[in-house]
């Protein structure tokens, strides 16, 4: 790899303690994020994409447990390395990571802002936790950032409440509230899902533009491969908390290797192929309480019936290209055949 990764996640596993028992939400996930890179994480709901990114900031709920072998090695803006998975929950270092190093924006900005405080109040709170500025200076920074994300009349908006803004404006305010803390990584958890398609495109353009200006890396979560393909450099496909396939987004869209990714791509409606019947992936995501043995996707995979290994052995992500990995027995068999 050309540069040192900003973030190296290895063997990330998260389990939930529920009334029905221990549920695996993220299983042995590993990936790296380069400075300035945009990594898309795609998967159906329940695939663990949101949980794994919350784990990066240690924002998991009380009933969640981070596996002891998980490592989240992060290089801070000052160049020091910290393993976020090992930080004390009350440590200053973790508070600095949250917001100051890694910031997050959410699917529903209306719920992510408290209706009891103005947008400015919540932005200033974040600024003053991470930057040594006075209240007045923080307010100026907030107004500047609101202006920067394209909000009209920022001097007025700063004193408004989230419920006084439109959906698109709210998401812009959310982005401003994250970026004003100058993070090196922005985690965007389905930030466009709740928006109209036209607004969605505006927000994606804005994020790309801001990324250029601020030079931050983005982890962009979506269930929608089409959205991911517009913004991400690389994509990580997740299913039931496991990595299915990782690689450059263009290659994965054109040459998906994993049967699950192939299914996802076939399920995208295309304007130019209106006559083509949609091909949904058969079946439903299994309940996390009944995790399939072997490959977690085998219950819905069109090829699993012919391959007994899929039912018993967990496939390990293997390279199909230098920067393209897929976790599928079919591919490892093919690679083996080719190398023999």
């Amino acid at each position: 790899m050309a540069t040192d990764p900003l973030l190296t996640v290895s063997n990330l596993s998260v389990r939930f303690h529920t009334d029905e028992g221990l549920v695996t939400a993220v299983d042995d996930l590993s990936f790296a994020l380069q400075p300035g890179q945009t990594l898309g994480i795609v998967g159906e709901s329940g695939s663990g994409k949101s949980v794994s990114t919350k784990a990066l900031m240690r924002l998991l709920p009380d009933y969640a447990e981070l596996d002891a072998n998980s490592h989240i090695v992060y290089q801070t803006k000052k160049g020091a390395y910290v393993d976020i998975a090992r930080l004390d929950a009350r440590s200053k270092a973790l508070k600095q990571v949250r917001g100051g190093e890694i910031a997050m924006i959410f699917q529903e900005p209306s719920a992510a802002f408290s209706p009891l405080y103005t947008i400015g109040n919540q932005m200033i709170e974040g600024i003053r936790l991470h930057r040594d500025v006075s209240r007045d200076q923080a307010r100026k920074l907030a107004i500047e950032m609101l202006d920067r994300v394209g909000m009209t009349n920022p001097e007025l908006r700063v004193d408004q409440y989230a419920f006084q803004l439109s959906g698109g404006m709210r998401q812009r305010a959310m982005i401003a509230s994250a970026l004003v803390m100058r993070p090196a990584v922005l985690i965007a958890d389905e930030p466009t899902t709740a928006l109209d398609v036209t607004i969605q495109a505006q927000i994606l353009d804005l994020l790309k533009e801001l990324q250029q200006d601020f030079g931050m890396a983005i982890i962009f979560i979506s269930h929608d491969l089409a959205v991911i393909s517009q913004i991400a450099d690389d994509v990580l496909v997740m299913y039931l908390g496991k990595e299915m396939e990782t690689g450059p987004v263009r290659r994965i869209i054109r040459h998906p290797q994993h049967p699950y990714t192939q299914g996802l791509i076939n399920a995208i409606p295309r304007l130019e192929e209106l006559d083509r019947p949609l091909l949904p992936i058969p079946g439903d995501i299994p309940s996390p309480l009944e995790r399939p043995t072997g490959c977690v996707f085998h219950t819905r995979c069109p090829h699993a019936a012919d391959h007994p290994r899929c039912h018993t052995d967990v496939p390990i992500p293997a390279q199909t290209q230098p920067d393209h990995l897929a976790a599928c027995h079919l591919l490892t068999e093919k690679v083996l055949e080719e190398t023999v």
Partner: protein
Amino acid sequence: MILSTASSSQANAAFWRFLATRLLVSLLTLLAVSFMIYGLIELMPGDYAERELFRKYSGTGVTITQAEIDRVRADLGLDRPFLVRYGEWLWNVVTRLDFGPAFRVETSVNALIGDKFFYTFVLVVGAMLISYIVAIPVGIWVASRKSGIGDGVVTLLSYLGLALPNFAIALVLLMLNAFVFDLDVTGLVSQEFRDAPWSMAKFLDFLGHAYIPLLVLGWSTTAFQLQTMRGLMKDEMGKLYVTAAQARGFSGWPMLIKYPARHAVMPIVSTIGFDFSRSFNELPIVASILVLGELGQELLLAFLDADQNTAAGILVCITSVIIAANFLSDLLVAALDPRVRMRGGR
């Protein structure tokens, strides 16, 4: 919809209009309450003059004559029409805060209920304050940590408070004090202070007696508020705006108080008025066990004796406190929630 700040100041005007309306309705409520009790007693068979003579001569063999009844009526002014008497009473209340003469005891209503109103007020307000001061922080604390021993103890104490009837708690405390500590804790002040003017010593003596009714009244209210606060707090802590605040690096008690607690306390603040009236309703039972001279008992006696001035006076006092509590609750909710200010009331 995008509102401008200009419209939000208009919205604040809407809230003041709401408060003004509330105030007007409150005054009308007081008027209606006094008129209703005055009228209700008027509708009862017989009046105070008959009751007084009956009490005076019952068992003496004296025959009460109509002339005598008429004389007492004239003395007390009871021979005038109902509306005149009510009007005069109301006029004196409004202009001079004078509730008129109490028939049953030969003194004014003000003198009769003054101290008792003070005791009742202190007991009810004290019990409510204790319950808020305990329930809100403990509720936040219990909700913010994983279940453990502290949680268990709090839950046990609050279920006891909820399950035990107030009179039972009062009896147990009374027994404990009488037999174990050998203290006389009935009444609200010791014998020597009963008719003494207010002094520091009398006040301290009052506090020494008041803690039992405060404990009895406060326990169940605290238990109820605590369970409410904990439940609401748990709900709020799962909300996205809390995750978002944590994602900004905000944590600990300052975060809990700024975000989830402010949201969670809203339903408690908005029921202050309701809780006051509940406390007023619970007080007479506790009061009769602890032999406290308080308003509830006095109200019942006044009603039985057809003492219109006293009954209406007491009811107006109690209702005023409940209305004031409701008003306070409206103001607090508006202070806590900008949406209420903008909408112009709940």
